[in-house]
């Protein structure tokens, strides 16, 4: 096993903060590199090792469940917040406030509550179905503040917007929270007054649904492209949901006359919202409407009227083959789809006052891929997912890893589930029971969510 120190600054800064708070936590976090497989060894695992050969003779008695919770605290270390069952102290796995724009590194690993409107606007789409069920069951939407999201937000806040947009991509194993981090970023930027162009799930755009064939037609604007009007329409609705208020405020006017057909046209100087509503009304033109809108938004951004966030979940899907076939029964590449082509153009360097964030998603790669039975087996590294074409186009970009929970985060997660009465088995409420769940789930957020359902 080869060990190397993770070199990026912010993580070290985070750790410094962390270690200053707790004397017993080890001074450095190490990353284990095992044959290209990245697993982070959480800092909290560097606890002091008891001297001599230690037998762990846990007193696992089901009757004493409630007492054990507090007894075992010494085992773990003083800094790890333990949910206190009987006392009325505020739970330590929640943030002090719920404002998404004001989180610092100290809030890493803590949950914040998302208001129902924000949940609908920014978080809901693109998450795993299990998360949506969880929100329904828990009757509240919460998101954990995590370090990768904060790292991206740090770059976004301090970026110089006079220059062509930066490209920041989350990458990581399946279920580690890439989409969630992206949603967090989108919510943050939405609150900061940025225009958000957000694709919550790229799978939707390239995967053929089992129920019914998607209506498609050759594009009228560009030869050789194909319109998927339903996708475009859905996305326009989502865009309207996220940005309607902002667009009303900005009052962006079109700079060019768009002639859709002999009868329909959008004159110069009409509001961009009109363009949007036209796309929504006339399904046939919704795809072209997106292109027109992006053109206007880019122009407005260049004029520094608005900052733009482009957030695409599953950027590697831009070059994927879709599961859809054209009239000649040939598989269509995503590049041939006009809507996707419009998003593709947002990554060009010909505009400024914007920033591009995305995730590199193994589950998008798993579509149509016969090499891997399970999408958990698909490699998650950026170059593999982007392939040569994508890497050549996107390079240089900033890859940001989203790893599994560290000990603190996993502990908070389980404590949160216990508080929400999701974990019920009496033995799982003990400290050793919690560790067992963590071990089984390998501290993977998605697996923690699914496995905790059994306990």
């Amino acid at each position, binding site marked *: 096993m080869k060990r190397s120190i993770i070199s990026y600054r912010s993580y070290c800064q985070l750790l410094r903060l962390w270690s200053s708070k707790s004397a017993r936590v080890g001074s450095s976090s190490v990353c284990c590199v095992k044959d290209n497989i990245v697993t982070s060894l959480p800092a909290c695992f560097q606890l002091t090792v008891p001297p001599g050969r230690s037998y762990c003779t846990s007193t696992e008695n089901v009757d004493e469940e409630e007492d054990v919770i507090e007894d075992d605290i010494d085992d773990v270390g003083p800094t790890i917040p333990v949910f206190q069952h009987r006392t009325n102290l505020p739970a330590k796995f929640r943030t002090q406030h719920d404002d998404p724009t004001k989180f610092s590194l100290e809030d890493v690993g803590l949950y914040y509550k998302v208001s129902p409107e924000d949940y609908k606007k920014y978080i809901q789409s693109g998450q795993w179905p299990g998360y949506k069920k969880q929100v329904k069951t828990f009757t509240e939407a919460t998101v954990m503040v995590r370090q990768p999201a904060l790292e991206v937000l740090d770059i976004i806040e301090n*970026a*110089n917007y006079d220059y062509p947009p930066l490209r920041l991509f989350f990458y990581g194993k399946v279920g580690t929270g890439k989409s969630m981090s992206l949603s967090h970023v989108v919510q943050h930027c939405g609150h900061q007054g940025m225009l958000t162009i957000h694709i919550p799930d790229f799978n939707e755009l390239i995967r053929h649904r089992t129920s019914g064939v998607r209506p498609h037609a050759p594009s009228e604007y560009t030869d050789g492209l194909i319109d998927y009007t339903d996708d475009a329409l859905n996305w326009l609705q989502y865009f309207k949901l996220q940005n309607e208020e902002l667009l009303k405020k900005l009052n962006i006017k079109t700079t060019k006359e768009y002639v859709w057909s002999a009868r329909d046209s959008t004159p110069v100087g009409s509001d961009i919202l009109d363009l949007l509503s036209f796309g929504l009304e006339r399904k046939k033109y919704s795809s072209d409407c997106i292109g027109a809108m992006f053109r206007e938004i880019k122009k407005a951004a260049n004029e520094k009227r608005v900052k733009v966030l482009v957030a695409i979940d599953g950027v590697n899907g831009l070059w994927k083959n879709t599961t859809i076939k054209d009239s000649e029964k040939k598989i269509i590449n995503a590049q041939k789809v006009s809507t996707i082509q419009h998003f593709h153009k947002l990554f060009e360097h010909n505009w400024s006052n914007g920033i591009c964030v995305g995730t590199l998603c193994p589950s998008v790669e798993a579509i149509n891929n016969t090499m891997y039975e399970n999408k958990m087996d698909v490699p998650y590294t950026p170059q*593999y997912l982007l392939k040569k074409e994508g890497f050549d186009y996107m*390079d*240089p970009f*900033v890859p940001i890893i989203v790893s599994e929970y560290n000990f603190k985060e996993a502990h908070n997660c389980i404590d949160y589930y216990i508080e929400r009465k999701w974990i019920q088995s009496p033995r799982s409420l003990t400290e050793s029971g919690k560790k067992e769940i963590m071990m089984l789930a390998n501290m993977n957020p998605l697996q923690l969510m699914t496995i905790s359902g059994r306990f």
Partner: protein
Amino acid sequence: MAAPMNSRCISCYNYSLSHVINSAKVLRSSSRLVSDAASSRKDAVIGSTDDKDSKGFRRYQMKKFGDIPMERKGSRFTAMVKPIAPRYTKMPVNQDWTNVWPTAQTFKWSVVPLPLKQGYLKNKMEAAGDGLPPQKRGNTELIKIPNFLHLTPKHIEKHCKAIKKFCTEWPSELDTVKDMDYHFPLEVITEDYCFSSPSVRDPRARTVTFKFKASDLEMDSHARDKWQKLLKSRDDKVTLKADRCPLRKQNYDYLQYLLTALYFESWKVEPWEAEMTQEDMLDYSWDLSHSKTNVVNIINKYREKDQTIEDPTKRRLPYVSDDVSPDTVTSLEPVKEYKQSVEELNMTGENITTINNYKESVLKLLNVQTKSNNSS
């Protein structure tokens, strides 16, 4: 040699094979016949003294009518052929075994003077017959075993004595394998076959093999690349083998020619090689890659913007002073770092270290501002 062997074989089969006690009888009777005594442990003397001439050779005697026993019982011939005692019964204990068994051969029960047995009976109580393990005579199991009766310590001593006169002293300069490789980088392997069939030729003898390391040849990066392409192998260890020609000498000459041709061919630069792209290369080369054009483009884009800012300290890319072209871009320090990280990413594969190096280099290349950057 063949005739006596055969006669002995016939005599063997005339033994009654059924019962051990019978065989023991035969043994005793045979010893009586040749007046040898295994029990007396003396050298065997064949025949009586009358049968020999003055020099001690056996005299040939015609069989007389009277030799055939008068009272014939059963078949006419059975009485005439008398079993000859196996050879081992006549062996002295202090004989030279290396002469008896000089080379490798299959087990012969009549020659090996050991009372071997092989095969076991599952249940001694139940076993048919005497309940004893099968003897060496006619025991095919013993024949199946590849024996080492020709390689006893005495044999080895004899062999060593015989070949010692052909040996010379090992040069002290070639003590280690490293030295050997250094002084003799090319290894030529041929094989000689020696056996006693009517033909003295073996088709395998003409095969010639060259073994050497490609790194021992003097080549630049281009030549090495071409060498690898010609050989279709990236291994340092190269093995060339030829067995097409009928003679070893011809094969050897051919391999010498082949090696020379390969070497000089890889040094040649053909005009079409200038058109090679990234895909044609065996190794990743950043200079040919799309990544380089990307970087040149983006630096120029940033520079356009930078030129509008008068204060040089506030410029995004302070390390760029002039417009960059694909030729000059590598001279910039962050670009060098970036190039290295991308090459590493492609050559050693993706892992946490290479990805993080890439990330760091991109942050430096684009001079991305963060909170920690600003504060420091």
